[in-house]
């Protein structure tokens, strides 16, 4: 069945609006993703990411806009179309895993196939195949309640992919795991998704998870999309202060663009209290000469030097230096401003050292 589509993307969300009472949880957002890719909706709690996911799942209705996947319209209130969640052919991994405690691992995983009336032999084959994929073959006959957190997680994933659905949804699935397991599961999830190739949407507030796993990231805040792009793009070229602060760590300072030097490059006058320095920088989308902007510099792009080399260096004092093995986490004071700097252990920095900070124009970004 083919339906005329407004876009050639596999999943297309158009002008999605969702109200909860007087709160606009999702404010007219649109995005699309290609078949087989992995999209992450990233943002703090209350940014509308889970609401967006639930809208795609059909676990709540939307107020306006439309959602379609592979040419099938899931919901479009203006046409009074609302496809029940069970008719959307979606696999979903929930935050609490939602493994049914009254069933065994095999019963949990075969459930979607039983519902779809697969023949018994095929159910057995597919369940065995999927359990092998998530490395739960030994646990097949165990009751779901006997599994550890990480195993429940994998059981939940197996159940979501067993019927080869047209879409896979993840609602913060790793947030209940401890750090070590979480880091391991990130890679595992990504490997399995790659292997089965199902288009996936992943919701998280953990930026590291988003960077590791995604093909594309959508950064959201207060119901709006702040930026869409590949992980490297989002990290190295955040479009605004919000994104650069949310993804990774950044030194953020107010600055005014004094003059444009070449396309995409400018001189910015950075001032903090009574200190001023002029820095060459790259400029973000929509930044013009004379604009008040925010300068964003990642800690790993701040270089500590012992001797002043030019006027674009600033003088600071090391407040503390924490040795973390492969790098040193420093705080450098510049007047009352505290720079976050990642230094190399061989610099042998210690608290109280007078040093200079140098910046690369390529990694100094002026954003709105």
């Amino acid at each position: 069945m083919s339906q005329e589509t407004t876009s050639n993307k596999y999943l297309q969300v158009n002008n999605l609006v969702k109200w909860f009472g007087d709160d606009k949880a999702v404010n007219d957002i649109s995005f699309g993703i290609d078949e087989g890719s992995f999209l992450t909706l990233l943002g703090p709690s209350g940014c509308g990411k889970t609401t967006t996911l639930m809208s795609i799942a059909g676990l709540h209705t939307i107020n306006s806009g439309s959602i379609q996947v592979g040419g099938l319209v899931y919901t479009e209130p203006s046409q009074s179309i609302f496809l029940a969640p069970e008719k959307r052919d979606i696999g979903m991994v929930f935050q609490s895993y939602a493994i049914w405690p009254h069933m065994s691992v095999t019963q949990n995983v075969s459930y979607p196939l039983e519902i779809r009336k697969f023949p018994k032999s095929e159910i057995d084959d597919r369940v065995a195949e999927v359990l092998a994929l998530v490395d739960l073959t030994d646990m097949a006959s165990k009751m779901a309640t006997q599994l550890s957190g990480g195993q429940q997680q994998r059981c939940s994933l197996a159940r979501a992919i067993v019927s080869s659905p047209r879409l896979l949804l993840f609602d913060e699935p790793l947030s209940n795991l401890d750090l070590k397991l979480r880091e391991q599961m990130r890679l595992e999830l990504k490997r399995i998704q790659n292997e089965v190739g199902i288009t996936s949407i992943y919701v998280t507030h953990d930026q590291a998870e988003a960077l590791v796993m995604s093909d594309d990231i959508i950064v959201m805040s207060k119901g709006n999309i702040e930026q869409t792009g590949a992980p490297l793009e989002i990290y190295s070229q955040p479009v605004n202060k919000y994104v650069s602060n949310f993804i990774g760590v950044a030194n953020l300072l107010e600055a005014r663009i004094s003059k444009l030097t070449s396309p995409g490059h400018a001189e910015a006058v950075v001032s903090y209290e009574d200190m001023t320095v002029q820095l060459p920088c790259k400029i973000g989308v929509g930044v013009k000469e004379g604009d008040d902007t925010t300068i964003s510099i990642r800690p790993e792009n701040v270089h500590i030097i012992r001797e002043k080399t030019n006027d674009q260096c600033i003088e600071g004092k090391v407040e503390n230096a924490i040795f973390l093995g492969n790098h040193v986490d420093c705080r450098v004071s510049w007047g009352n401003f505290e720079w976050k700097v990642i230094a190399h252990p061989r610099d042998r920095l210690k608290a109280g050292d007078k040093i200079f900070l140098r910046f690369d124009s390529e990694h100094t970004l002026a954003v709105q």
Partner: protein
Amino acid sequence: MTTNTLGNNTKPTRWSNRLNALCTQENIITIVVSIIVGVAVILPLITLVISSFLVLDDLGFDTEWGFGNYIEIVTDPVIPKAFLNTIIICSGCTVLATLLGVSLAWTNARTNCPGRAWLEPFNLIPFFLSPFIGAIAWHNLGEPQTGLLNNLARDVFNIEGAILNVDNIWGVIWVTGIFFAPLVYLFVIGSLRRMDPSLEDSARTTGAGLLKTTMTITLPLVMPGILSGAIIVFVTSAGEFGVPFKLSAPYGWETLTTQIFTKAVGDDANHYLGATMAMALGAITIFLIFIQRRYIAPRSFETVTGKGFRPNVLDLGGWKWVAFAFNIVFIFVAVVLPIISLIIVSLHPVWTGEIVAEKLTFINYTKTLFFWDENSIDAATNGILNSLFLAFVGASIAMVLALVVSYMIHRTKGAGSAILDFLCVVPIGFPGIVLAMGVLVTYIQTPIYATLWILLLGYITRFFPYGQRNIASIMLSISEELDQSSRMAGATWVTTMRRITIPLLKPGIFAGWILLFVIFLRELSISIILYTSGTETLAVGVYYLSNFENEPLTAALSLAQTVLCLICMFAFRRLAGKEALTA
């Protein structure tokens, strides 16, 4: 999986889309159930209000509109006194039940009283038994001439006359007080158990003694629970029919419930006047329940820290044996003594107050229990069969309603859920006898009148909220994601209910079912209004024997009912666990 098998939106029109969107399994079932619950709960109450403004003329055939019934309940020679007696009984019962319930809960939860863990189930036994049976048993114990305790006192201490007389308003307070003490107990035990012990410890470090700490810290902290329990006891005792009917009404102390009963049945029955009295009683109880739900219950969370620690208990020193003795005495007086009296009396062909060993017989059991026996008494044997039927069918239907209603309130959370939540409180606010009057005046001209079905309707309407609460408490502890993930796996709403939701709620459903089964087995105040010859229930059978036959037959059937209730209690405790009934 191809798209063909899923979702079919080929050139649909907007209106057919909208219709399709509305006609989901979930919507259809919930709308049907809401209508059933709404009609069942609201219709009798509306009819009750309307009936109270219909005045029967002197000949007793025609009615006209007016306030005559309201004038009559004020000017009647008996009714105002009955009203006063009701207030005295409720107040006395509330004070006694609260004192007993709170002190038992405190000893079991906060002190090192010996054996407190195994004492608790025995403290709660009266909750599962019928206060009417309690009244019958205590009548056998404390009647001035034939009472066992009085005879014992005369034999052993050579006392003239009687040391005890329960056939009066104080007897009613005594029996209802000990039978409703578990209600208060259940309201306070949860917050006492979960209370942070450091609150008490810090009071002790300031130099406050045990008594001072308990009075100034512990009890004030659980005060919302105490007040809730007290209000529930007041409302329950206001609607209690069996105890005043047995102990006080025959001796000149009428209450509102016995007066409603007199007006609802009998030769000079005046349903409209009965409905008016029921209105007056219902207005008081629903007001109190409203206060409890609106102002007192929400505050009770403030005292609870919610942490899962095991609180330290207070060391009572030598006083722990006093607490132990108090607990044992309560069990003896509330459970053991009444059952012993029923056993003794039921084994005598006639009861004169003396135990006559050579005349002991099982004839009373044959006559009341063996429906195939030619000497059996129909009212009693019918009662057993009818009650088993009503309890089984009633509990099953009520739990289905309770399940759907709980789902709507706690899962669907649509516009209707606030209304349904309200509909689940209303029946709790109206005593059984009041609701039964409403059911009677509503359905008296329909074919279901004088059948078991009208009893079934009354039972379910009045008591399904109890089952609903049982399910809701479990439903709230189960993640909604378990349901949602089944929908995402492709299962419809009905399949999800059948394969996921209901299996997960099974313990709650069974526990609620048994609770309703036991409530229906002992139910008196609805049955007494709605029964006719042939549709007697177990409790109506007891009433019949007590009124028209003799005490030994009454005792035999009472004991049979008690044994059934005790069996259900054991089943309930096994299924539901310790905390199931606590507020």
